[in-house]
């Protein structure tokens, strides 16, 4: 979030060091219509990423699991959509408790009204913008556990995960008083909070969940790549809101984040395709879609801190790094079905570190002579990895005991659409 930017640049740090957010109790600030319009739009754009993700993932699974996979994203809109206003927002952005989490002051958005202001925009807009991030992050994990996890357990999992993993990490990085914010970690739009946390949690989940039947033995092919391409297109579109909206203003910084997003996505797509062309003879549509997402993920933490030339470098490198991670995975043999770890975990970590290297705008990284920032980025990355992996592993382990993780063999064979949703994706 440009929240950091906001704290650092709008030169109102006092607002953020006090224990009560200014906009909730007093309204000295005026809302800025233009900033509001842009963040409203950005919020809608991020919402659209969720159906986009549903398509991106849904196209990659086998036909018999397409609805199951899409429902992983849609049900997140339902349950985290509710969880966020009930308790998520206040845990992430409520008054700080021990630099770790927010308190319960804003449960049910208590005490916030249309006139409440947050920076230059209505607090409601800020809440909604942040809420979309909270929804999409657990849905990202679903790419790893696709085609074999019980739906009921998944639903319970994402509610608990959002509450115990996402909300605290968001507080660390973007909540006033959060320890990583205090430390000066730079994360413009969610490299740590969104991508590392989901990618690493994906890894923890599949460590317990195991592989799909037939993995690496029989062809498990994407059933509809037109959905995946469309999904990638919607993700690219929505990511402008994700990144440039994180400036929380309609200004030059938003423009910079927008430009970097565009450039990195293009470069990521290009380098992934070149990699495939070189090493497996065919530049594939799935590769194009994957490269786009890799480029978008990697630029996320850096979007408002680097110049477009460095965005070009980051995007290009992200394509290479994530492509390698994905190819490696099949060598190692773990079954991250749709590469949630390979792209979000690896790409997010790469981006978080790259921010520490290349930041020159609104912050200073290694190339601007600040090795300390790079250290801070490493701390943020490692802390997120450790916390997310540990918590998720524990959570999934408990859920396995209590509810069971996997569908029955027969259900896996005939598909989760039939078993869990009583439907077929297509009657063609």
């Amino acid at each position, binding site marked *: 979030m440009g929240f950091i930017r906001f704290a650092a640049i709008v030169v109102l740090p006092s607002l953020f060091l006090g224990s009560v957010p200014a906009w909730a109790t007093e309204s000295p600030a005026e809302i800025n219509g233009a900033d509001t319009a842009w963040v409203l739009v950005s919020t809608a754009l991020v919402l659209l990423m969720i159906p986009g993700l549903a398509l991106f993932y849904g196209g990659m699974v086998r036909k018999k699991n397409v609805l199951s996979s899409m429902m992983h994203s849609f049900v997140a809109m339902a349950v985290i959509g509710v969880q966020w206003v009930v308790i998520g927002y206040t845990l992430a952005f409520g008054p700080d408790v021990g630099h770790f989490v927010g308190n319960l002051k804003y449960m049910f958005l208590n005490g916030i009204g249309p006139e409440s202001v947050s920076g230059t925009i209505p607090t409601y807009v800020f809440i909604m913008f942040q809420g979309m991030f909270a929804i999409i992050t657990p849905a990202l994990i679903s790419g790893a556990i696709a085609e074999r996890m019980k739906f009921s357990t998944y639903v319970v999992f994402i509610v608990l995960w959002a509450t115990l993993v996402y909300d605290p990490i968001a507080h660390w990085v973007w909540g006033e008083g959060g320890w990583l914010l205090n430390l000066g970690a730079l994360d413009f739009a969610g490299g740590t909070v969104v991508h590392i946390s989901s990618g690493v949690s994906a890894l923890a989940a599949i460590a317990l969940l195991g592989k799909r039947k037939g993995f*690496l033995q*029989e*062809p*498990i*092919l*994407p059933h509809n790549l037109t959905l995946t391409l469309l999904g990638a297109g919607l993700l690219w579109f929505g990511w402008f809101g994700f990144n440039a909206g994180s400036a929380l203003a309609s200004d030059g910084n938003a423009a910079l984040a927008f430009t970097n997003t565009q450039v990195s996505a293009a470069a990521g797509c290009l380098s992934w395709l070149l990699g495939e062309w070189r090493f*497996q003879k*065919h530049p*594939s549509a*799935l590769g194009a879609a*994957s490269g786009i997402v890799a480029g978008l993920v990697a630029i996320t933490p850096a979007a408002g801190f680097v110049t477009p030339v460095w965005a070009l470098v980051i995007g290009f490198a992200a394509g290479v790094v994530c492509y390698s991670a*994905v*190819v*490696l*995975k*099949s*060598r190692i043999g773990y079954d991250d079905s749709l*590469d949630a770890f*390979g792209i979000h975990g690896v790409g997010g970590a790469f981006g978080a570190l790259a921010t520490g290297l290349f930041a020159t705008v609104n912050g200073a990284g290694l190339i601007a002579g600040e090795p300390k920032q790079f250290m801070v980025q490493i701390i943020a990355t490692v802390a997120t990895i450790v916390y997310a992996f540990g918590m998720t592993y524990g959570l999934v382990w408990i859920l396995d005991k209590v509810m069971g993780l996997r569908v029955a063999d027969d259900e896996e064979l005939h598909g989760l659409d039939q078993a869990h949703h009583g439907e077929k994706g297509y009657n063609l």
Partner: protein
Amino acid sequence: MKKVECIVQPGKLDPVREGLTKIGVSGLTVTEVKGYGRQKGHTELYRGAEYTIDFVPKIKLDVVVPEELVNQVIEVVMENARTGRIGDGKIFVTPVEETVRIRTGERGKDAV
């Protein structure tokens, strides 16, 4: 009556159908099938994992004709479906004991 079952390459449906029309075969039924045989499938790479696709798409034509036409049908199919490469397919001839045209109830040769 005999049924001549021809399994051919996907692109060969139209030439075969045209050839058959010329020798007076006025009807046939087509099914999309997948074949396994000497022609090996290809390998596909997905996200670094390599899969062998064993089955290749084929078209099956069922042509029911009077016995005396069978050899002609075989010839026409050979002519129009042959490329000389592995995977050109097979022809199987099987007996048909009765044929009926549903619309009219006609039987035997009159029915096809």
